[in-house]
């Protein structure tokens, strides 16, 4: 895997993350489509995700929760807004309580995923659009593993390797 580029826009509050994988587009699509594969990478190892509902068709709602080391649960949901398998996916990524009940007090993050074939590799572009700092902060809290430092240190090691 190679991280090709990362673009951060502090005004628009967007992040565009581009990575390349040594697999074909169909195979990379599977890690998004198959809930058993998706839950192996969506949450950090200390907060693994469990998808109780997942189907990549327009209008479909996915439901998941992440379980922390002490058993605490953090819920989330997706609403699939556009699909063109196996190259394009758009969804709203929202928050939910521990029972999976959507939290409507905070807007979902808009996510766009694009897969494209580059030689024998697949380039994956994920664009995340936030509406507020509060929302971004909540997303970071939820996705981060045991505080920022540990996770970031690990990444540095990998990126410099």
């Amino acid at each position, binding site marked *: 895997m190679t991280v090709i580029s990362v673009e951060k826009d502090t005004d628009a*509050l967007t992040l565009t993350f581009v990575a390349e994988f040594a697999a074909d587009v169909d195979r990379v699509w599977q890690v998004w489509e198959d809930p058993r594969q998706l839950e192996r990478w969506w949450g950090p190892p200390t907060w693994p995700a469990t998808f109780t509902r997942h189907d990549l068709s327009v209008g479909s709602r996915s439901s998941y929760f992440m379980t922390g080391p002490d058993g605490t649960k953090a819920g989330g949901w997706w609403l699939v807004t556009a699909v063109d398998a196996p190259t394009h996916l758009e969804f709203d990524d929202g928050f939910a309580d521990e029972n999976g009940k959507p939290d409507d007090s905070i807007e979902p993050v808009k996510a766009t995923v694009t897969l494209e074939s580059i030689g024998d590799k697949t380039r994956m572009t994920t664009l995340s659009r936030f509406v507020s700092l509060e929302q971004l902060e909540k997303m970071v809290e939820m996705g981060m593993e045991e505080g920022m430092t540990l996770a970031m240190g690990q990444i540095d090691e990998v990126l410099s390797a």
Partner: protein
Amino acid sequence: MVVDQSTETGIDRIFQALADATRRDIVSRVITASHSVTSLAEHYDMSFAAVQKHVQVLERALLVTKERRGREQLVRGRIDTIGRAAALLQAYEQIWAQRALRIDKILVEDTHKEKS
């Protein structure tokens, strides 16, 4: 020193400052409470001068401020909107970098299975 944070260079400076693991760690420590450079230095396997330098980079990026309290220099987080947005997007980038690594692990497993 006057730096216009709304310019691109200001934002670049913030991202550059946050690109280093030690500096990110310093920021995460001083966001919640002031720390002296001496007490910060205790957390890292590097010289006081090296830590001092990291603090200077953060100061230039306007992510922290230093103030003299007696004989100590206290470092405090100075995260305004742009700094906060940058720090959070930097953190969110790490979330995606980690996810990409985990995806890669799943894909690499396939290759191993094919070979065996």
